[in-house]
């Protein structure tokens, strides 16, 4: 790859600075003993202590993570099978129709999805809380997983499956030893995207929470009415660090599997 010219590097630096400046601004003030986002007084860790002393806030953070992990896992399982189903639809028209329906779900506003879930849950008589949030998060994550997995499936040559059949593989073997290993990067990408969608979703969750169950985005929104306290800054800083760790972990994971692929040999 050609080296970047100097103006290009400067441009890149400016763009990244603009993107990250608000986050660092927020983290910087989480150490402010002054209590507001204007005028830095002294370095303090009291806001971090406040985060760990507020059990309600901690419960909300943990709930948010649980919902994100489980909804991402379940929607990935459903989404991958759905994508495989779609790709093997013989009827072209039908396949396009199903794909369009999937896309409609991605582009339709969260508010509408949230409102319709609220109406559905109250009509069926489901109590609003953990279950309703989990179900709605799974629902809006599935189309995203499908979109992430489809390109991998499309690029997979159908002769791979023919060869496997020739060699005596059963339907089950084809799925678990040919298709899924091939689309594995797509599956992980879909999982991580579903995870982030669930973590930062506000609109849908806002409609379907109730009975004391809240996720972080909904809680911060309510707190912001009376001005954001630096506890939120501290919490955001912690979450930012954890996310950074996750991204780095994902990066090393990818590096390793890329290296494995380079040495050849069948992947498990």
């Amino acid at each position: 790859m050609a080296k970047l010219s100097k103006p290009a590097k400067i441009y890149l630096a400016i763009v990244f600075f603009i993107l990250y400046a608000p986050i660092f601004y927020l983290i910087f003030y989480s150490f402010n003993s002054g209590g507001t986002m204007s005028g830095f007084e002294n370095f303090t860790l009291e806001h971090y202590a406040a985060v760990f002393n507020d059990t309600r806030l901690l419960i909300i953070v943990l709930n948010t993570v649980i919902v994100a992990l489980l909804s991402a896992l379940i929607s990935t399982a459903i989404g991958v099978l759905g994508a495989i189903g779609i790709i093997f639809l013989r009827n072209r028209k039908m396949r396009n129709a199903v794909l369009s329906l999937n896309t409609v779900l991605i582009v339709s506003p969260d508010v509408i999805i949230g409102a319709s879930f609220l109406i559905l849950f109250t009509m069926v008589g489901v109590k609003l809380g953990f279950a309703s949030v989990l179900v709605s998060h799974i629902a809006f994550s599935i189309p995203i997983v499908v979109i992430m997995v489809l390109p991998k499936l499309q690029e997979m040559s159908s002769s791979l499956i023919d060869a496997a059949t020739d060699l005596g593989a059963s339907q089950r073997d084809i799925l678990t030893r040919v298709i899924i290993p091939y689309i594995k990067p797509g599956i992980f990408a879909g999982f991580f995207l579903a995870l982030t969608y669930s973590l930062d979703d506000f609109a849908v969750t806002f409609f379907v929470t109730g009975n004391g169950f809240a996720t972080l985005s909904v809680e911060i929104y309510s707190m912001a009415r009376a001005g954001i306290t630096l506890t939120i800054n501290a919490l955001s800083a912690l979450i930012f660090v954890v996310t950074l760790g996750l991204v780095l972990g994902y990066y090393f994971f990818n590096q390793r599997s890329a290296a494995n692929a380079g040495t050849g040999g069948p992947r498990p």
Partner: protein
Amino acid sequence: MKGIIRASTAIVIISAILFYAVHLLESSSATSGSGSISVYNWGEYIDPELISQFEEETGIQVIYETFDSNESMMTKIEQGGTSYDVAMPSEYAIEKMKENDLLLPIDQSKIPNLENIDPYFLDLPFDPGNEYSIPYFWGTVGIAYNPTLLEGQTFESWDDLWNPTLEQEVILVDSAREVIGMGLNSLGYSLNSTDLGELREATDKLKTLGPNVKAIIGDEIVEMMRREEAAVAVTWSGQAADMMWINEDIDYAVPEEGSNLWFDNMIIPSTAGNVDGAHQFINFMLDAEVAAQNADYVGYSSPNAAALELMDPEVTGDERFYPTEEMRDRLEVYENLGLEMLGVYNELFLEFKMDMEK
């Protein structure tokens, strides 16, 4: 495939561990006892220590949730699927909820601490006899201003806002009844006026304020005043208190012609599951010491006479936030004007805003 199965198992195990952690946290924050209640309140509108204290004293676990507007709270309650036991809406929301049968009557015999409340705040037009609601906090609408940016100008009258030196300095709160009400008050009319002639006159007067108005916004007012981006704001007393907490230069005044007096109240929604616990909670919040601690934390004006005696006299003697009864006589509570009249107010407010853009 193995990798995927391994990753999935790891996720399930992590989730299970987190579940267990949540369970531990929940049980550590609540002492075992008779059931739980759900409290639905504005964000940052209670001292969290008091919740723990209530849990310790009664053994009832409190599930605490917050909302950001009367409208979203009403929708949640109306839709069902939730079982809030206590909520804290503003007075106009109470009238609406009463009309829609969303409230349960309060049994005053279970709330002995009601006697702590200043009688002035009981039996108000929006809920005669306090059948459905108990006052929680109250406040006024007035002018917050920063004298250091204004060469010492002060505000005694709404008409001071029309001073030509204030060009592009005044922020208004984005709410039809507050702004039109201010126009009506400045002319000496009632802010519950339904006389179309008076309303027209008030709107025409407001239009002449146009050159002085910098912005018509919501909660951002507090930040803008703190950062001294604006010098004058028409706003609620609670927001003014928030500003003064950070920026000590800011002052607050309720104009002499009169203004609005508002209340947030504790109510029991019709969906409540633990009515007995709800009464206990309301009674607890009215306790003199509890109410004093809460008012100290939240910073709004408390209607609890017994609590005021326990509080710092410098705070309770501050006539900007605890106006004397004589001053309060000039203040009016919003009456429910009906949908049609509200439409007229909204339309006139829109007309005023459109006129500003010219």
